[in-house]
């Protein structure tokens, strides 16, 4: 059985990518399961899609713990623990990352025994797929790496899945998928089917025993205010707003009032401070700041630079 796990963000067509791959397998005579999983059904939030395909009946259910192929459509998710990209991968897993960085860079970064392959976005800016079509490029590469899916089955699967979106969208997505299919041609069949685990191989759930306690002790959160701050929505962000305090004219209200997420408060000096644990990266503050004191930088750069978060 083939087990494929897609990782991406809401809005990148990850759920659709899973369905396309499932359809393509189906056209090749496989039995197929495909299912997306999302916590927050929101643009920018981490999303998973699972595809199982087998020549025989599939009895396995649920999320894929030991994938043969992991497809990462957004490389900014790799360091995000909640995205669980490296979960359950082993020497025989192939990790396909859609990224500007090279195979070697990722191999060094991740120090994993899995085989890592990079699918780079096209060099010409005009050729780069829009966010919603990144999934299609990834699925094209995935199909070739699996090796049992023909270009024709892939095309038919995209046509079926995207028929409602109209011929232009279908044509674009077929184009992105087939380009990626060609690009990884030399690695055709790199992904090998995993075995059928017996019930004995299933891991025990990691239960934790808790003594029975009064609700006030065991569930204190019921009585607490604004507990939502425990949810770190900052990981939704692909761009980071950064304030240049030299240009901030302490207007008092613009970025803080317009930020939908209460993620910008004023400090003692009247300078705004961005709460990066929760900023979802909508960039309203960047668009609205009158003296253009807030700029957007890619989150991947921000992680390396660690810009000053404190006011001057």
């Amino acid at each position: 059985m083939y087990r494929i796990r897609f990782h991406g963000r809401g809005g990148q067509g990850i759920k659709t990518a899973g369905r396309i791959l499932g359809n393509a397998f189906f056209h090749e005579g496989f039995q197929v399961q495909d299912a997306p999983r999302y916590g927050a059904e929101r643009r920018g939030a981490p999303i998973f899609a699972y595809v199982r395909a087998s020549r025989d009946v599939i009895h396995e259910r649920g999320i894929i713990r030991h994938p043969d192929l992991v497809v990462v459509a957004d490389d900014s998710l790799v360091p995000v623990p909640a995205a669980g990209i490296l979960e359950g991968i082993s020497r025989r897993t192939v990790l396909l990352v859609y990224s500007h960085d090279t195979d070697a860079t990722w191999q060094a970064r991740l120090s994993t025994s899995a085989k890592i392959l990079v699918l780079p976005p096209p060099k010409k800016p005009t050729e780069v797929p829009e966010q919603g079509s990144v999934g299609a490029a990834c699925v094209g590469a995935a199909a070739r790496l699996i090796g049992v899916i023909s270009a024709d089955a892939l095309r038919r699967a995209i046509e079926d899945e995207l028929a409602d979106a109209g011929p232009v969208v279908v044509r674009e997505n077929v184009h992105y998928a087939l380009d990626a299919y060609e690009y990884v041609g030399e690695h055709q069949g790199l992904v090998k089917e995993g075995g059928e685990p017996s019930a004995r191989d299933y891991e025990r759930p990691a239960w934790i025993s808790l003594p029975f306690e009064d609700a006030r002790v065991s569930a204190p959160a019921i009585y607490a205010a604004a507990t939502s701050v425990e949810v770190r929505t900052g990981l939704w962000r692909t761009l980071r707003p950064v304030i240049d305090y030299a240009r901030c004219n302490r207007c008092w209200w613009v970025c803080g009032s317009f930020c939908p997420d209460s993620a910008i408060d004023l400090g003692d000096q009247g300078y705004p401070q961005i709460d990066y644990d929760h900023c979802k990266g909508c960039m309203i503050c960047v668009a609205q700041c009158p003296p253009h004191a807030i700029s957007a930088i890619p989150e991947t750069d921000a992680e390396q630079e660690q810009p000053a978060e404190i006011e001057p």
Partner: protein
Amino acid sequence: MNESHLRRMKDLPSTHLLGAGTPMCAGCGGLQALHEIYDLLGAKTVFVNAAGCMTLLSVYPFTPFRGSWLYTAMASAPAGAQGVRDALDILIQKRRIGREEDLETVVLTGDGAAYGMGLSATSAAIERNLDFLYICYDNEGYGNTGQQYSGATPHAAKTSTSTGPSGYAGDKKDLFAIWAAHRPAYVATVIGAEPLDLARKIEAAKQLRGPRLIIALAPCPVGWGYSPEETVNVGKLAVKTGIWPLKEYIDGHVIHTKVPRSRLPVEDYLKVQNRFAHLFTPQRDEAMLVSLQTKVDDYWKNIA
């Protein structure tokens, strides 16, 4: 609104009471309006919600609020508010809680409930002169389930259930007029992109008792089809083109609180949203654009 102490932008709150970390989308216009409103209403509130995007705000064990929350069926939020208000009144009457512990009862629903399913319950609550505040975040469709059309969807907008070449065939209900026709204590339209106008109206509503109802137009990046950073621009265009009149009903009169001096063409608002893209490509639907503009012109013809 003359007695408001909110005269200028610097009078707006600079720290925020509504907790971060909610599951609302990046750039949510509804959450923007809600946090601006909540900063002024404060923690001594109990929210009664009907099914919609914002139901996800308060999912155990997480809540962005500093007070209580009650979730009701889609059509029932004002009825739920009646129960909460009655319970508070009885507790105060029986001296089980002091007057200082009283809470403002706030209904929070989307347009699906406000314009459609919950309209009858709202009508009845106003009829009973229930002392409550109703906040409707109006993103002009059933946003949480993928933007199916609702009673608030504007004419010609594409939704996931109005996919034909001319979009939604119906017209957006005039909920302001429907609510005002009940002669409640207060009705107002607001938008997160105009925080001072919004704040003055919330302050005004706070001073009054009885049914007070607020409709916040909530630009929705996902449902309307625009990039999240444009939420405030889209909201400002809604006001500047005259599509979303900012007004209030008080003491039997309707007052427009922000009359755009020279209205921008409605087209400026439509063309930045993918849900209206079919009016511009592959060719301009001139007849539709003219008729949408005419509707807005006709509205403003009789106003100041």
